């Protein structure tokens, strides 16, 4: 290929090298028995949640059911366990499950195995890393920001640790708003330093935008320059008084701190002079503590249990991460006084009552019938009312992660060889660059573009992961190791679609395998991999 674009680093050697290391260790032979039967799970994961999670989920469902009944909507049937497993993996780890994981899942018994699978994923570093990255987009955006005083990566790592430990979300947010020190030892200060303007310090207006949108689901930035129009209740003062809480935030040799001498100034529309703006919150002023530094007081107010905007915004965002679509759209623009869609208030109540426990919130949402429903519906409007699971486009990093995972039979998690993980990250980065990042947080469902389609059909990543390569590529290995054609086709379907083939699909591909000879068999498997990776089912969550 004489591609004109700079080729991504040819890092295939990394993967080859890592697999060789694995072979020497003998680990790679373990895959053989996945063709035969499910593996035995040595230690069973603990049950995801105790007590009343199911009851809360039922109460949420009841609100949806009422609405469906009112609209004469027939809800879709429940999805099967493997479909649920795929959904959970995609939204929590950013990739489809591996064949290894599918076999482990199949070996689990009991009706609550998807719940136990969920608790396993919540304890998985991939999940905390991925959710941290998704949340960081809302907190600090995707850009790398001012170099010397901002390290996005450090912030994401800090957030990942907090999510893995399931630190209460209100505490995480307070630490972000009211942080001190330098970015190296206190990574949470990056939330503030990302807004730094050379010579001016942290940008109060940008911080007001972030705090109101990301944590409270309120867009008051439209009133930065004028009072609200088009029915907006906000006044220019609401915005600038919120920004004023960051008016004393400054850098010193010791890092980020508050300088009591600093004051936030702004010029209101119609005024000729800038004026000192006092710090005040735009609603529920009684919740604002009287004592403490300005940012500490703001942080307390934002996360106060009585300030329901905080819980609602978080529920809406988590819902969006789990369904690839928010309950209220856009994700950071919720009405303060309602009306609210089914489920939102009930989930917010539970989130507040349980101390802002994110793992529990994920547990409750994924326990609802709404989440566990099939996406199969003849009615294109059904998913609008959550009467069928919404079919949504995978995000670029989910696409890339899934192509790479499907090409490897073993799980590419924290246990995978470091070279494999480096290679994975490089490949995902290159792919996302070409495919186009969705930006800060995009839950829009546009169809794929032509350059994206061309990249999947002819680009390096899919080509490298499906071509004949007995050392590393799953397709080739399945062709070589599967005891018969039926097993080969079924294994590939599980590895790529997380399901078994239909009779028609099985017949089609078994026929192609039966009529192939020698190397042709590996080509058929390579073509099967290409085909499934270019199908709608692969690039859309369902």
């Amino acid at each position, binding site marked *: 290929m004489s591609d004109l*674009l700079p080729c991504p680093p040819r890092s295939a050697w990394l993967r080859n090298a890592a697999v060789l290391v694995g072979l020497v260790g003998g680990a790679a032979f373990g895959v053989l028995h996945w063709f035969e039967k499910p593996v035995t799970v040595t230690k069973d994961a603990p049950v995801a949640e105790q007590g009343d999670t199911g009851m809360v989920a039922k109460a949420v469902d009841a609100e949806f059911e009422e609405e469906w009944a009112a609209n004469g909507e027939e809800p879709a049937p429940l999805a099967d366990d493997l479909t649920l497993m795929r959904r959970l993996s995609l939204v929590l780890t950013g990739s489809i499950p591996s064949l290894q994981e599918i076999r482990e899942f199949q070996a689990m018994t009991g009706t609550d195995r998807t719940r136990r699978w969920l608790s396993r994923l919540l304890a998985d570093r991939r999940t905390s890393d991925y959710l941290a990255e998704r949340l960081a987009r809302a907190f600090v955006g995707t850009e790398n920001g001012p170099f010397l005083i901002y390290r996005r990566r450090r912030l994401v790592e800090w957030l990942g640790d907090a999510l893995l430990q399931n630190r209460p979300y209100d505490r995480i947010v307070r630490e972000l708003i009211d942080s001190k020190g330098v970015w190296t030892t206190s990574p949470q200060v990056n939330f503030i330093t990302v807004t730094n303007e050379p010579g001016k310090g942290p940008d109060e207006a940008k911080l007001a935008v972030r705090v109101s949108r990301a944590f409270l689901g309120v867009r008051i930035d439209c009133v930065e320059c004028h009072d609200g129009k088009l029915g907006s209740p906000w006044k220019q003062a609401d915005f600038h008084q919120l920004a004023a809480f960051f008016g004393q935030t400054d850098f010193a040799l010791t890092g980020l701190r508050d300088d009591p001498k600093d004051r936030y100034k702004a010029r209101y529309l119609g005024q000729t002079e800038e004026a000192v703006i006092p710090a005040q919150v735009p609603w529920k002023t009684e919740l604002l503590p009287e004592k403490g530094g300005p940012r500490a007081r703001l942080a307390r107010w934002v996360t106060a249990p009585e300030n329901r905007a905080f819980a609602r915004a978080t529920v809406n965002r988590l819902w969006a991460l789990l369904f690839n679509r928010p309950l209220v759209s856009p994700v950071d623009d919720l009405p303060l006084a309602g009306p609210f869609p089914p489920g939102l208030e009930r989930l917010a109540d539970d989130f507040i009552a349980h101390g802002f426990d994110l793992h529990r919130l994920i547990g409750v949402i994924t326990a609802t019938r709404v989440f566990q429903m099939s996406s199969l519906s003849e009615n294109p409007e059904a998913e609008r009312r959550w009467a069928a699971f919404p079919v949504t486009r995978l995000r670029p990093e989910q696409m890339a992660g899934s192509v790479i995972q499907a090409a490897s039979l073993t799980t590419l998690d924290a246990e995978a060889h470091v070279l494999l993980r480096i290679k994975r990250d490089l490949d995902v980065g290159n792919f996302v660059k070409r495919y186009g990042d969705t930006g800060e947080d995009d839950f829009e469902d546009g169809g794929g573009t032509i350059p994206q389609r061309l990249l999947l059909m002819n680009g390096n990543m899919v080509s490298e992961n499906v071509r004949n390569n007995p050392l590393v590529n799953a397709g080739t290995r399945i062709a070589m190791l599967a005891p018969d054609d039926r097993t080969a086709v079924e294994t590939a379907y599980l590895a790529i679609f997380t399901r078994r083939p239909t009779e028609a699909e099985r017949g089609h591909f078994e026929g192609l395998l039966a009529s192939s000879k020698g190397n042709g068999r590996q080509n058929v498997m390579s073509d099967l991999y290409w085909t499934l990776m270019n199908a709608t089912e692969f690039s859309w969550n369902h």
Partner: protein
Amino acid sequence: MNADSTCLGYDHLTRRTLMRGAGAAGLSWLTPLADLLAVEAEKSPSGKPAKSLILLWLGGAASQLDTFDPHPATKIGGGVKTIGTAIKGVQFAAGLEQTASVMGDVSVIRSMVSREGDHERAFYNIKTGYRPDPTLIHPSIGAVLCHELPETPVEIPTHVSILPNQWPARGGYLGAKFDAFQVYDPRGSIPDVRARVADERMEKRLESLEVVERAFAAGRAASLDTQKTLHRLSIERARRMMTSEQLKAFDVSLAPAAERNAYGDTPFGRGCLAALRLIQTGVRCVEVTLSGWDTHANNLEGQAAQVKILDAAYASLIRDLKRHGLLESTIVLCGGEFGRTPKINALEGRDHWPHAFSMLVAGGGFAGGRVMGATDPQGEKKEPEKPVYVEDLHATVLDLLGIDYLKEMMTPIGRPMALSKGDVVQELTS
């Protein structure tokens, strides 16, 4: 709105886009005859409105004082030497001899005003006509063009960015499908358009894909594919593009040697030649970027080096568009995201200057041979005479393309937004 189409291809003409093309916006009915008229208007090669756009970005910001607005022998002149142009009394910097000779077909604006002095923000501004806004991303003008005008009978992308810098043209709130298709030095084929396997095997793969797609479609609404995922459509279009003869438009190695030499043996020269070939094929908007103008040090030499690359390529493009009868239907803009300071700094460089810079405009209804505005030869007055704001240039271009630039689009955040908030600069057109 071209909502269910992509910025590519022909077969998804919608009634509403046709209506716009026919200039009949406001009619709520449309007869087959009106349909036909819309297509005819599109086919007509002559007369207004313009139908395509070439944007030549002098990235990093060309110095107006060392290109199209020199003030020799003044304290801000910086040692620039000048030459006469086809416009009487108008001088350009030496090195722009070929460009000077085509100025009968080109006008120069010497009073462009931007409000952004940072490269990224200024590029956003000059490509979209709006200042950056934290709440939404505005579409680049090429995306607006693809969205508003009827689709053209081509099998390749109709919005193309050649040699993009970090900020290629985007679809913004119109959607990623209106993003420019990015290609680099057009010296050979473009990426990802060749199948990795032989035709016969590719056919088999696509047959298998049909089997798999049928399984997924079972029990789902037909509109999932036709309205939402657009999967079949995107595969078809990708296939059509992969096998299209029109892909050759990207490959300037197929052009006659004499033609190639005229543009100069540079990536930018090849980019301009590719732009010509793409416009000939029916592409709507091509942007080509020539970076390297950010001369904070050694301004005189730095600018002269880029001028050399620009001169041959620009003049050849204008000549060839005219020769092929395409200049009257193709707008060509050429300029930087802002200008450079009259004052020369301690490193013999010039810094960022958005207050008054130059832009060449040609074709598609722009008059030739005119000069708009003037800057202070002493460099003391910031404001130029007859300022043309970036948004005014956008309004003028959209107007020449027959697009109602005042029309408000509903953005995803629910805020209505005019396509341009500028005013048409009549002096440049009539």
